């Protein structure tokens, strides 16, 4: 058998190191083993991510995402008109932000729903699982690759309308547009993470697609309406209102972006939340948690998926 490139080759988290004589040498060897493991994990995840990016390009997902965001962005610019001054910019940027609430989650769910169940159906996941790599790393590589394609699509798609806005309203609008872009990318990653988690749960692509569509309907359409109804009907505490916002990544995004744009008064639920005391920092952390938690769940689920495969 030919030896692999690196030294100790083990499962994720398990490190085999050389026998050592003293404690300090032992610690050194352990640290070295950990570094080797991290380097190996990085290479494995990187290789899988690069393959996923390649697939995203060949399957035209990158082009579709760029085209989608560019087309809707231009549509907003066209209909928003070109009112002069700060108010004009805020109105147009807020329209772009609201557009992102609908389009970005849909695009992310559509792109991510088959991340695990697709390769599982085709047999590619079985081939990868036969390699000396943990399922968690496989999942990480696939998700990272899709994340790169999605964020790239959002960034390039918003570049054209963003550039028009900057040329029209001046370079002082760049920070606000950058915030909008970053938040939209984070929103996309959050829904990609949700899609990946759903993809690990189901056995067929059609079921994953159905679950992804239901998730979109819930988070984008139903949740805010229900929350607005609850807020209107009951005298909720600030904590309850905060919890309602944090329970939905689109609400988090909406409050974050509209607050940063200075347009917090627009949008039904967002206007109710203007006094809820949510800081931009907390909202950013919440959005990051909406990326991390579903991915952590997916990492656990993909192991369970492996154990049920044989039954």
């Amino acid at each position, binding site marked *: *058998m*030919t030896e*692999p*490139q*690196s030294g100790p*080759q*083990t*499962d*994720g*988290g*398990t490190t*085999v190191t050389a026998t050592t004589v003293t404690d300090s040498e032992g610690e050194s060897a352990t640290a070295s083993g950990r570094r080797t493991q991290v380097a*190996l994990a990085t*290479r*494995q995840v990187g*290789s*899988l991510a*690069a*393959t996923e990016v*390649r*697939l995203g390009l*060949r*399957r035209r997902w990158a082009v579709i995402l760029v085209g989608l965001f560019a087309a809707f962005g231009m549509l907003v610019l066209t209909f928003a008109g070109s009112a002069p001054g700060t108010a004009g910019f805020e109105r147009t940027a807020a329209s772009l932000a609201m557009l992102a609430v609908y389009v970005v989650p849909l695009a992310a769910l559509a792109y991510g729903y088959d991340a695990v169940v697709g*390769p599982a159906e*085709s*047999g*590619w996941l*079985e*081939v*990868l*699982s*036969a*390699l*000396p*790599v*943990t*399922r*968690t790393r496989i999942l990480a590589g696939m998700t990272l690759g899709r994340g790169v394609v999605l964020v790239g699509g959002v960034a390039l798609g918003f570049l054209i309308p963003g550039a028009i806005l900057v040329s029209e309203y001046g370079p002082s609008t760049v920070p606000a547009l950058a915030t909008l872009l970053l938040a939209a990318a984070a929103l996309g990653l959050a829904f990609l993470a949700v899609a990946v988690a759903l993809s690990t749960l189901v056995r067929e692509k059609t079921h994953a697609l159905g679950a992804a569509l239901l998730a979109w309907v819930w988070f984008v359409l139903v949740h805010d309406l229900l929350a607005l109804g609850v807020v209107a009907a009951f005298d909720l505490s600030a904590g309850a209102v905060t919890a309602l916002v944090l329970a939905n990544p689109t609400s988090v995004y909406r409050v974050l972006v509209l607050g940063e744009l200075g347009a917090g008064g627009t949008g039904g639920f967002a206007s109710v939340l203007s006094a809820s005391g949510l800081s931009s920092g907390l909202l950013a952390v919440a959005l990051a948690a909406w990326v991390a938690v579903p991915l952590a769940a997916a990492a656990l689920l993909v*192991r369970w998926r*492996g*154990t049920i*495969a*044989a*039954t």
Partner: protein
Amino acid sequence: MHIETTDVTRTYGDVTALDGLSLSIPSGSTFGLLGTNGAGKTTLFRLLIGHETPDSGTIRIGDTTVSAAGTEIRERVGYLPERAGFPAELTAREVLAVTGRVRDLSDVDSRVASVLDTVGLAGDADRPVEGFSNGMRRRLGLATALLPDPDVLLLDEPTAGLDPLGVVAFHRVVEDVSERTDATVLVCSHALAEVERLCDRVAILRDGQLLAAGELAELTAGTSGLEETFEAVVTGDERFGDEQSAVAADGPDASEAQRPPDTAPAEREEGAP
């Protein structure tokens, strides 16, 4: 590399997939694993590559206990799953390159070129997989298993669904690999003629239990061939009772088979030692 399973049991709920399986597979042999549906063949493969751990019993490949090795065991084992598939948009070379990089192999490009040549896909290396026939896809799957130059090669229903020419082409590659390397090849198949052609040793399973095992010539002696032997063993023909079970048990000794299991009954979390 020698493979030995000792009193291996694996259950899924109420279903016992493997029931005290003890089997010894000599290094360098080409071993056929036969059985009816649900006999436990695929479960054994999943245990051999460390996807699962046995509820009780041990599996060793060479000097390594599989359940303790984590994913490391797959560095030495090439596995062609029954349902192997590939992204249609990737070329054969790209498929092999990514599996080689995930394996962290050195000289990936030259290895890929070499293994493509071995499986007869050198001329199609840069074509997308979507244009491949079933036979070409199976040979590409075999190439992913051969890429690390494995000590053990596991082939799960390798020619299922292939046309006769595809089967012949696949068999030639496996025979070539068996001749040129000292890898232990384990073939799980419903195609008795395939096992008869490729394998020098055979084991027959039913309901997770080993019914017979031994050299092919030994098992088929006195019958018209493997088909008759298989039918007789599975249906409980007296000729294949205790005598063949004795052949099956020639690896692990009985006292070892009774020792307490050294692995936890629950599914091992991947990544754990």
